[in-house]
């Protein structure tokens, strides 16, 4: 169970479509130190079905998925220590 879930940065990708969603997250990730937590606001549907998995494939750790109850989700991701 992760203890500290305080994100150090937030990125909103509800206004873009694939593949820009992933690009935007990557850019935000690049600015973070390894192990830092990023909060992502994303849309229901394809983004929420695919992005957590893509981020995991990149070596990051998905911590939480929060339903904002407005058709969007909040995703907390811990950046890979190696990156």
């Amino acid at each position: 169970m992760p203890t500290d879930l305080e994100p150090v940065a937030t990125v909103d990708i509800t206004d873009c479509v694939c593949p820009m969603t992933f690009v935007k997250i990557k850019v935000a990730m690049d600015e973070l130190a390894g192990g830092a937590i990023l909060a992502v606001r994303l849309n229901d549907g394809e983004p929420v079905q695919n992005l957590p998995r893509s981020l995991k494939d990149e070596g990051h750790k998905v911590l939480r998925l929060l339903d904002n109850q407005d058709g969007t989700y909040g995703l907390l991701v811990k950046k890979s220590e190696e990156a």
Partner: protein
Amino acid sequence: MDVDYKALKNGGFMRQKQKDRFSLRLKVVGGNLTAKQLMVIATAAENYGAGHVHLTSRQGVEIPFVKLEDVENVKAFLASGGVSTGVCGARVRTVTACQGSDICPSGCVDALSLAQDISQRYFGRTLPHKFKFGVTGCLNNCLKAEENDLGVKGGYLIDWDSSDCFFCGVCVKACRVGALSRGQRQIYLDRQKCVNCGRCVKACPTNSWRGRPGYLVSFGGSFGNRIAQGRPIFAITEDREAVLKAADAALDFFTAHGQAGERFRTTIDRVGWEPLTKAVEAALAN
């Protein structure tokens, strides 16, 4: 001299429009040929054909414009380079496959080696009509399992282990068919809805979903004059041997009940899915 065109066709020499010219079908399993085989085929196309090959829709290779008088020579030349001629007519045809788990990152089962086993066991076996096998490594279904008389597709048998799960809900969202739902510190799986795709397994950050590779078998597909989607008879199985047992039963059923010139699906529709299901289940119980 009377030419036995039918015998030639059965042996892979397909009659062309042009008199006494044949498009020679070669034996290929799962779309794989070695570089050496390709070179032999290229030379054969230069020396016995018109200098080109045709790639068929089912991963086959044909050498068009082979002359009648060269039939034996081209066969001998190809054989010397490890290339066999194919088959046509009412029998088990080319077994297709994707590269599967050995090569493809999405691969769940080793489609190619299973296709080789199937081909070894059945290729060329005479039946009431042509019979196609296809094997695809995962639910992405690149090799379109259900368009074959017997199709095999890789999938995952999944199980949830609660110990490391921190109820992030990612798996619930990753599932495209709504088979998962979240309760209070609980994840529920509706096995009736689950299609064994393994997306939950791949998406889970804590490896709380375990997926074991299995085989999904479909029967009675065809994609020619008649288009029909193959259907499952039994649930996903981890047992590779069970796939071959089911195939044995399906071919025996077709031999016993099929009328000459009728595809497997037509036989099933006429005789009924029930007797086929019984025959397959009996074979699996053995």
